[in-house]
């Protein structure tokens, strides 16, 4: 199955978007956004995989040993940490919406008011 990781990434992306579109709860919506975002990690890591490659860390490993792409790994690891704080920001906004509108169902919030 040489395309399986890409199919998984595509599926996770689509199922997350489906969750966002059909969501009845802002917290659920924020988590679905995180699911969609996670598909990019799988895609990046899948693209960087070298058949038979080890981790790109050469402590006690001979230089020149086959290793996977370190660039996609560094992109993924920084983004995981950043995405947690961005998710928290969205949840803080959801808390404020609940205080103002007394609901976190996006369909019941109605028009945006300042």
């Amino acid at each position, binding site marked *: *199955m*040489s*395309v*399986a*990781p*890409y*199919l998984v990434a*595509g599926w996770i*992306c*689509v199922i997350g*978007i*489906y969750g966002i*579109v*059909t969501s009845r709860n802002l917290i659920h919506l924020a988590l679905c956004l995180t699911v969609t975002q996670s598909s990019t990690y799988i895609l990046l890591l*899948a*693209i*960087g*995989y*070298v*058949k*038979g*490659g080890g*981790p*790109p*860390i*050469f*402590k006690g490993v001979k*230089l*020149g040993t086959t*290793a*996977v*792409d*370190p*660039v*996609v*790994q*560094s992109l993924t*690891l*920084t*983004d*995981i*940490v*950043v995405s*947690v*704080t*961005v998710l*928290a*920001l969205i*949840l*803080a*906004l959801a*808390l*404020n919406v609940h205080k103002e509108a007394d609901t976190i169902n996006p*369909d019941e919030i109605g028009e945006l008011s300042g």
Partner: protein
Amino acid sequence: MTRRIRIAMFVPALAVLGGLLAWSLVAIPKFGDYRGPYGYVLNRVVVPERHMSNVVTSVVFDYRGFDTMGEEFILFIAVTGIVLLLRKQERDDAGELGDEIGSPGVRIAGTLAVGVSVLVALWLIAFGFVTPGGGFQGGAALASSVLLVFLVASWRSWSGLANDKVLDPLEGIGAGGYVVVGLVALVDGLPFLTNLLGPGKTGTLVSGGSATFVNWCAGIEVAAALLVLFSEFLEEYIVPLARGGGTT
């Protein structure tokens, strides 16, 4: 916009997206058949050139250090936004909560676990350029180990450690220190964030050269940012509980 309209708009969009995804699968290289030059080049040159044995961390804090500075500021701004949304002007006192953990076994074993996990977190940051780890992973581990204080002791012990008086300066030092290390290179007439002290000695605490400081700044920034986040959300939950006289 009603639910029905939203779903009606979603279906055609999904069909287009599905088509594009299927199209991309036709030409994409097989899994494991990596073509890009960067991975091969970096895995060859990083150890001889920069004396760092963890190539991932060398990319994060040295080769792409400028990009990571941007990522760090996203973190900083997101946490600033959370503080603006959630922090109250006058801090409520949640002292009457009565949530101290009664079991001495949990308290003692838990306190030991805090010590061990803080040590592991600091080790992850310190040896980021040698073995798996680095400022981002170590910072997240450090924040989690401090959060353990809340779980094994009480809200009062936690908020004594993780409050805005401690965390706000640390967050500033983490974000600002990164930029300062970058600017020092400019003073020397070199490009921003040039690794001045490098290359260090492979396999040691200073194998990162001046990127070692950048790594520590990122570790402090990530740990402080996550702790601010935990403390703001916990306060949002705890303070109403304390007012209601309830226990956790």
